[in-house]
């Protein structure tokens, strides 16, 4: 808690939004509201989370708090006061005084938030100046969990994702700001590493006592470090309250949908079925090598049965994407066998496979922006290689919850969820026996994800294809599939029915994955 000169707790809020409305205006399109009548008051030493989907305005709100205002934004009315100063109206000199020493923003570490050609030491020097001793810098790094002199001399590309985020944290705290603003601090990190980073943030905040505002699309992230949470939707704050209460007893309709969309380990969204059927994919002792020496998959034994839903869980580098790529032929098999159910050798190169094999295995990829050819309409993308008729396309779209008018739409006119649905429809038009999904909902809002998964369940039940879903989110997998495989560093750690693997995991790695997931929505 910050105190003023008389050692009395400082009554002015560290951050206050007073009825703020912001629009975006550029020459081409009409103005669009980004923030609508936002009022929010944060006291010194408080920890607040702001949760919302994409387009909710949460990032804009955070950046306004930091005094960052891009040229096409217009403040329609209201006032933003950061540590008592209206940063938006301040001069450059005034803002420079506040940056770093009073407020600091830690951006998403997707891409490069650290300057690639400067060492960690240089970063510190540019922030704190030359007078500060190296020992003090080493202390700052140790505080965030990076112990050892070696870190000062490293370049950003020599650090892992988690290490980079910790360095950013140390840099932000180097001048002891009163307010720390975090923008999606763990979205680029694996779940375990992200949780560790959040724990560090929480610990440091408790020791140093600064105010903390954390923006995320993920309620689980916010629940780990914020005592109070505000939920945003379409530019408005729809609900605020103690985090525990928002999670357990949401008041607003949107918050209710948000909370119920979050996949939970113990909540099934799809009935599991265990039918005895023949295998459609058999792989024995599979090894796949990518890019020289890296063994993406090592001696894997794996089967998929007809009409079954299998989930593959693993962190980055586990080989899960490579497995899918090998099955559908995009990546060559190095050794081992990979067969379809009727004996066709799936290690055959893609351009040598006959048509019936090609159409029997289809895949949908992770990035909604990449799934569809931007130069084509949906109809063209759907029909070009499948030669589907108009009727077939309409039926296909309907089965994934899209209306016929999407046939004439182009990708830039569609949302992420709509694009993924179209991509799924396209895959289904080939009438596959096996559908492979590679993290297809990871880039979508959690509410959109829930809707897409529901649609997938319906379509799978109707068309009865085998479904292989890959994800890093064990709760998502556990709530949906019949059988789970756990991969780590290219090896199969554990597999079995969901109830068995989740209920009584055999391997400690699986156990840790389950624990981390459970922690995230625990308050």
């Amino acid at each position, binding site marked *: 808690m910050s105190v003023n000169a008389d050692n009395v707790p400082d009554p002015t809020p560290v951050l206050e939004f007073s009825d703020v409305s912001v629009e975006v205006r550029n020459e081409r399109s009409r103005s669009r509201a980004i923030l609508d009548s936002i009022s929010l008051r944060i006291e010194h030493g408080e920890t607040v989370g702001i949760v919302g989907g994409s387009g909710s305005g949460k990032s804009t709100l955070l950046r306004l708090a930091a005094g960052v205002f891009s040229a096409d934004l217009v403040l329609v009315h209201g006032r933003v006061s950061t540590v008592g100063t209206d940063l938006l109206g301040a001069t450059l000199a005034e803002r420079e005084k506040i940056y770093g020493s009073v407020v*600091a923003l830690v951006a998403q570490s997707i891409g490069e938030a650290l*300057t690639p050609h400067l060492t960690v030491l240089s970063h510190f020097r540019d922030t704190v100046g030359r007078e500060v001793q190296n020992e003090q810098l080493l202390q700052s790094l140790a505080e965030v969990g990076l112990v050892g002199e070696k870190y000062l001399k490293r*370049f950003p590309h020599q650090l892992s994702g988690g290490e980079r985020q910790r360095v950013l944290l140390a840099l932000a705290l180097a001048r002891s700001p009163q307010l720390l603003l975090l923008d999606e601090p763990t979205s680029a990190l694996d779940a375990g590493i992200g949780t560790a980073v959040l724990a560090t943030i929480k610990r440091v905040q408790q020791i140093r006592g600064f105010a903390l505002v954390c923006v995320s699309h993920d309620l689980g992230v916010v629940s780990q470090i914020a005592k109070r949470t505000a939920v945003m939707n379409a530019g408005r704050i729809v609900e605020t309250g103690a985090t525990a209460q928002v999670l357990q007893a949401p008041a607003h309709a949107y918050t209710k949908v948000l909370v119920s969309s979050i996949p939970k380990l113990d909540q099934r969204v799809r009935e599991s079925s265990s039918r005895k059927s023949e295998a459609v994919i058999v792989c024995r002792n599979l090894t796949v090598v990518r890019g020289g020496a890296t063994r993406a998959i090592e001696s894997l034994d794996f089967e998929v049965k007809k009409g079954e839903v299998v989930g593959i869980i693993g962190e980055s580098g586990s080989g899960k994407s490579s497995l899918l790529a090998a099955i559908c032929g995009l990546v060559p098999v190095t050794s081992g066998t990979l067969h379809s159910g009727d004996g066709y050798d799936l290690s055959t190169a893609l351009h040598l496979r006959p048509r019936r094999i090609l159409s029997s295995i289809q895949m949908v990829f992770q990035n909604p922006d990449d799934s569809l050819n931007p130069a084509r309409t949906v109809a063209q993308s759907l029909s070009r290689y499948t030669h589907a008729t108009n009727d077939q396309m309409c039926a296909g779209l309907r089965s994934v919850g899209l209306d016929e008018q999407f046939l004439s739409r182009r990708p830039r006119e569609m949302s992420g969820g709509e694009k993924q649905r179209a991509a799924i429809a396209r895959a289904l038009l080939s009438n596959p026996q096996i559908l492979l999904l590679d993290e297809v909902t990871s880039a979508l809002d959690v509410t959109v994800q829930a809707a897409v998964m529901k649609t997938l369940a319906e379509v799978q039940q109707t068309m009865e294809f085998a479904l292989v879903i890959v994800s890093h989110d064990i709760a998502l997998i556990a709530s949906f599939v019949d059988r789970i495989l756990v991969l780590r560093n290219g090896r199969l750690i554990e597999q079995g029915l969901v109830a068995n693997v989740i209920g009584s995991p055999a391997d400690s790695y699986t156990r840790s994955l389950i624990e981390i997931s459970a922690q995230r929505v625990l308050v």
Partner: protein
Amino acid sequence: MKDLARRVIFSLTTFVALAAVSFLGVDALPGDGCTALLGRFGSPAKVEACRAENQLNNPVLVRLRDWSYDLARGDLGYSIKRDEQVLKIILPRLRNTAIMGAVAALLAFPSAIAVGLMLGRYPRSRIGRAINQLSVIAMTLPEFVIATMLWLLLSIWIPLFPGVNVVPSNATVLQLLPNVWLPALTLAAVIFAHAMRTMRASVAIIQTMPFVESARLRGTKERVTIARHILPAALPPVVNVIAVDGAWLLTGTFVTEAVFNYQGLGRLAIDAISDRDTALILPIVLFGLAVYLAASLSADMCVRLLDPRLRTAGQ
């Protein structure tokens, strides 16, 4: 390091291959040193006598071998027409072109980087837009137009510089100096725009990267952000432009030298081609090649130095 070695070897083999191809190509052109010397007035007998004297009747491959040996020893050959060792003809011209190029480079590159940096960082200034429009014009107008316009402006209407060079090629540097400015200004105008716009575009891209904003919002001062964070990251494409245009300053300036009658390598090249002096043409072509390959390699090494990721690859 291995990659660099590969590049060097590739450049050397390219050079050798192109040298051989150039020799054969120039040899295939109609005429040779003797017809150049005697021109239309040479009777066939005289031409034959000249050829015998100069060993031009040997088979092509023999001549290629002899020429390669000479080249390796640094002997660039002998121009029959000009009755002079090629090296002696080329060196003063090279010096003149180098001086002109150096002046142009000094005028253009530092200012282009500075202006590009400022325009990239602050795109909305009025001056910025004006400079940008002017540089677009400078970049798209052909060299001879710019040369002619500068000649009009700074030699005819405002008699500041001598319009046409009358100083011989082996004059002293001091005597040469007044004649250097107009050609150097022309060349500077041509290359300024390219380097400036490349810098500007590069800075514009770098600016959108998270680390720039991240640095500012931590409290890094603006000046420090520009100098230490933005500049080194934005330089690589500009280094390539400087290398290519720098090479051009030594090898491609014939038009400007023609306009001002500046006695440099470019002027020599035009004269040699008009005279069909094949012994002279070949070394000039090879020189152009060598400069381009060297510039490419240097640019590569500089870019490597700038980006630690390329240096420590494999760690």
